């Protein structure tokens, strides 16, 4: 995606260290030199298509986003590059955050509906005096 020589690697990641000294950088942001904050590539570690595709889908629904795509760098490496380009001057971090929030909302909504439905079903079954599974 970007030429390495032109990159001004702005690695801002939170290094969370576990008790045994394990270092896990979960999120990095890479910006090409010369552009402002509306084109950013996020490197998400320990992630794959599960989050990548869902997130890309949610971010694309945002009309401010001009481009959003993700790729797994190599199947042996467990990380994805997610690139967001926005129209105008909106910083790319914003649709990223919004996408994450909306994905969480969708999951919560489905979870609630699902659990309510399960409860209904079990009550119906119990009232029909059949043996539960």
């Amino acid at each position, binding site marked *: 995606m970007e030429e390495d020589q032109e990159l001004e690697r702005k690695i*801002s*990641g*939170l290094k969370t260290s576990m*008790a*045994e000294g*394990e270092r896990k950088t*979960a*999120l990095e*942001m890479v910006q090409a030199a010369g552009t402002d904050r509306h084109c950013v590539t996020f490197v*998400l570690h320990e*992630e*794959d*298509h*599960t*989050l990548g*595709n*869902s*997130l*890309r*889908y*949610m971010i694309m*629904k945002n009309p401010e986003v001009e481009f959003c795509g993700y790729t797994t760098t190599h199947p042996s490496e467990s990380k994805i590059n997610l690139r967001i380009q926005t129209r105008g001057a909106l910083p790319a*971090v914003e649709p*990223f*955050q919004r996408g*994450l*929030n*909306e*994905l*969480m*909302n*969708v*999951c*919560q*909504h*489905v*979870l609630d*509906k*699902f*659990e*309510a*439905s*399960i409860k*209904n*079903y079990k009550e119906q079954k119990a009232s029909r005096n059949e043996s539960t*599974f």
Partner: protein
Amino acid sequence: MAATQAVEEMRSRVVLGEFGVRNVHTTDFPGNYSGYDDAWDQERFEKVPTMAVEKVLVYNNTSIVQDEILAHRLGLIPIHADPRLFEYRNQGDEEGTEIDTLQFRLQVRCTRNPHAAKDSSDPNELYMNHKVYTRHMTWIPLGNQADLFPEGTIRPVHDDILIAQLRPGQEIDLLMHCVKGIGKDHAKFSPVATASYRLLPDITLLEPVEGEAAEELSRCFSPGVVEVQEVQGKKVARVANPRLDTFSREIFRNEKLKKAVRLARVRDHYIFSVESTGVLPPDVLVSEAIKVLMGKCRRFLDELDAVQMD
């Protein structure tokens, strides 16, 4: 069907379908789109943890089955223990503690049956304990596990899984340690047997089909999809339950009838089939899997917040 609805307006009408005999569970999720359904099938269930045998300490194995093969088989046995009550074992920790390890003992010796008939050739009569099943595994509580888990709750899911076969004089004596893990690490930790999804079939009759053709039509689909009803003395075909169809496309091999039917799928109605290995019931699995996806989002949101604070 273009998707222009906002998240809040989604009519996620979750309707529960039939429950099969062996924990095969079907759920409908209308109103969803393929963007995140791919995330919701096998991949997500890889991240829901279970307990499985990780280390096998072999004291004595004089059976035909080699140590490593036996250990491999033992690892694949589903263990009935709620993984949410356990922690992951810390890396590099050799000794397990009661919060992250389960112990099982397997001790079987095969002997000759002294009361067998002289000329019998049936192994069931001749030998005692010649088949090693999972019911021979006994749970050894560690620490305070005996208080936390009542007798009989921690066991292999099925007690009739054949582990090995023995002959007189052979013995298996080993100790197993179970830890918590996820399917991504090794398939033995996967909580599902198969998890798949499909779109709701949509079958419409473009023209009325009557008489013998109606009978033929009903045979071209899976049983129950097309019903033949008697209307005013004539047999008329009606689409009764398109959901049952498996889309064999048999109808297209029939020259007369293929123009009478339109086969389609409802774009935004997904039917998930989740078959559990028995550790957790399928509805719990789906809930846990959704929570895993939410956990991932939350993790990145927290990271973003922390980064922006700097």
